[in-house]
């Protein structure tokens, strides 16, 4: 039996995470890493899309509280993650699959460590079963149709 290897998509803010490191090096080092200019840009649909495409967890790394380059992008991301976690929980999916860390690491060394830690946690939870749950939900098509407004 092959061993289950969880897939984690990691979004990180360019202003606090890895800005002193070589981006090409980090992208080789960290699997499924998406550097963005602010975590406030991350929409719930991006997170859900990741799960739909095969991710088992999503890790968001934002600026420390009160230090967002765009003032409150990290707070907005935190609010979205909090609400999403509550929704996931309500339909029987573990909230540990979406994590947000508001901190800073200019050299980006902690990113791979955090991804590794999350993978270890996800390995205990098993594969994402949200698609099975989503199939049973009648409003899935309506949610999709509302994107991009």
């Amino acid at each position, binding site marked *: 039996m092959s061993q289950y290897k969880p897939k984690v*998509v990691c979004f990180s803010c360019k202003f606090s995470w890895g800005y002193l490191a070589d981006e090409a090096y980090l992208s080789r080092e960290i699997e499924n890493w998406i550097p963005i200019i602010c975590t406030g840009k991350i929409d719930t649909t991006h997170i859900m899309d*990741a799960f739909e495409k095969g*991710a088992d967890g999503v890790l968001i790394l934002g600026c420390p509280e009160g230090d967002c380059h765009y*003032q409150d*992008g990290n707070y907005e991301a935190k609010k979205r993650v909090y609400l999403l976690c509550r929704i996931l929980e309500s339909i029987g999916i573990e909230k540990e699959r979406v994590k947000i860390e508001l901190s800073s690491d200019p050299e980006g060394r902690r990113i791979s460590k955090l991804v590794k830690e999350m993978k270890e946690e996800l390995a205990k939870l098993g594969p994402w079963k949200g698609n099975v749950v989503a199939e049973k939900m009648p409003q899935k098509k309506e949610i999709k149709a509302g994107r991009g*407004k």
Partner: protein
Amino acid sequence: MNRGDKVVSETDMFRCKSCGMCVVACPSEARKMVDEDIADTIAKVYASLS
């Protein structure tokens, strides 16, 4: 500058004109920017997942 001219601070520059939220966090503004900036990266990463 004349008396009564509207002062646009740096703070205001980062705010959405319609809702006053941070431009990157505002759902309408952010959606546009995300689609332009990181859509390709997201698409590449997500394609590699499956």
